[in-house]
């Protein structure tokens, strides 16, 4: 086993442990922190795959921005008064999990592994230049549409929060 494979199993295993903790913790703040740890570990996996840009953005956007807001809301809503688990939610949750599992089964059964000669990506793969190239030249229209969508969401949030402008 190469050191890269050992690293993958250690980081991947820890990511699984923390993602299980997200679900099985009773304390919501602990769950949120476990999710932050999971996101961080997945970012490390991206780093080992020559995708430093994606890994760093994963930390910057998900762990650094979105989860902070989640944590904010959880803390201000006081998780101590959350009600107990309900059977209906258990059923729905299990159904969603089963659906995901069916999606994953073909991937898990496919044991062919990576084709030979494709061990490592080419030079410059995952670099900011390459990402910018595809975002601002090849897919510039979808990119702009997505940013307009975000703008609409921001304006909507302002309108909802401030009744009289």
């Amino acid at each position, binding site marked *: 086993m190469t050191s890269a494979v050992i690293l993958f199993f250690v980081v991947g295993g820890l990511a699984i442990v923390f993602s299980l903790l997200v679900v099985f913790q009773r304390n919501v*703040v*602990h769950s949120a*922190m476990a999710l*932050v740890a999971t996101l961080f570990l997945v970012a490390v996996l991206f780093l080992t795959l020559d995708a430093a840009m994606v890994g*760093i*953005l994963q930390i910057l956007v998900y762990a650094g*921005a979105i989860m902070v807001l989640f944590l*904010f809301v959880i*803390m201000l809503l006081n998780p101590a008064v959350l009600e107990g688990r309900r059977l209906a939610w258990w059923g729905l949750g299990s159904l969603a999990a089963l659906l995901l599992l069916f999606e994953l089964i073909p991937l898990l059964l496919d044991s062919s592994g990576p084709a030979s000669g494709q061990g490592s990506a080419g030079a410059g793969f995952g670099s*900011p230049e390459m990402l910018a190239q595809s975002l601002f030249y090849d897919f510039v229209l979808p990119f702009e549409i997505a940013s307009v969508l975000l703008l609409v969401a921001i304006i909507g949030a302002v309108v909802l929060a401030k009744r009289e402008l």
Partner: protein
Amino acid sequence: MTATMIDIGIVAVKAALVLSMLLNLAGLLGWIERKGSALIQDRIGANRASIFGFAGLGLVNTLIADPIKFLTKEDFIPPKGDRLLHTLAPCLALFPALVTFAVIPFGDVLVLGGREINLQVANLNVGILYIFSMASLGVYGIVVGAWASNNKFSLLGGVRGSAQMISYEIAMGLSVIGIVMVYETLELQEIARAQGEVLWGWLPAWGIFLQPVGFLLFFTAAVAETKRIPFDLPEGESEIVAGYHVEYSGAKFLMFFTGEFAEIVTAAALTTTLFFGGWQVPYLMRDGLHFPWGGSLLLPHLLVVLLQVAVFGLKVVFFCWLQILVRWSLPRFRYDQVMRLGWKMLLPLALVNVMVTAVLIVAFQSGPVKP
């Protein structure tokens, strides 16, 4: 010993060197802050430390006595607080402050025994983004510490602190875009190298000359990120006591404290690297000094590298001192003023700076725009 073993050894030595420099400077700053504030306010300052009745070393005694005092104090966890998160929070506050330094170059290439050593712990092609991602993790120490203390003053301080940090992160990120556009890279070592060139034959191409507005915005936002006066709203003696670390004592408080000083050092090092040439000495090339008015002085390689590292250290210490000077000279803002400054002044100015830089780059570009 194989080649990879030597490589791993070199990286380990570099990491240990940078970490010890960062921690030592952070520790020294705690003392400089006391004596410096005394100097600014015309007092004598800390001079009463005596260890086992020995006060002979004077100032050095204070430097030793401070950590001993913190480490021997009782570690108090609020009975209704969250034990796990209360202990985790100081680590979360210290970790980002320490790892950010990994991508900051402290010298050019050192050639030792035919081996080229890049004087930077990790050379990431997304260096600047790495710094911002680590800075964005700094919020957790505050939020988690504030919540785990189970104290309303703590929580208020934590909410204030995180709102402030998220606001100024945006302005800080945008203020650096100009630098990235001018030097056309996200790698900090490349940015430092590009600043070795000269403009009009004599002016070093430092960030401060190419991006003066960017420097002002970045430095302001960086001071706000360290949560010190005039931006120390997460604390407030008259309203919310010590804010998010009101329930912390002993070694855990020391960790928050060290994290703050490590942030100061990192902010100073970043300012140096982005705007003041990093390890560059004006007119110093790899083989010696070449003055624009003719004449050159050839220097041995080791001396050149030593000069670069020493000058980098000097610049960093200067900007640390500047931050301490700011902290003891200015009165603190009100909270709404902090928010208004961040969102209504710094953010629009940073956007205008990006626009103007883009227009100027396109206007002065001789060839066609790159594909």
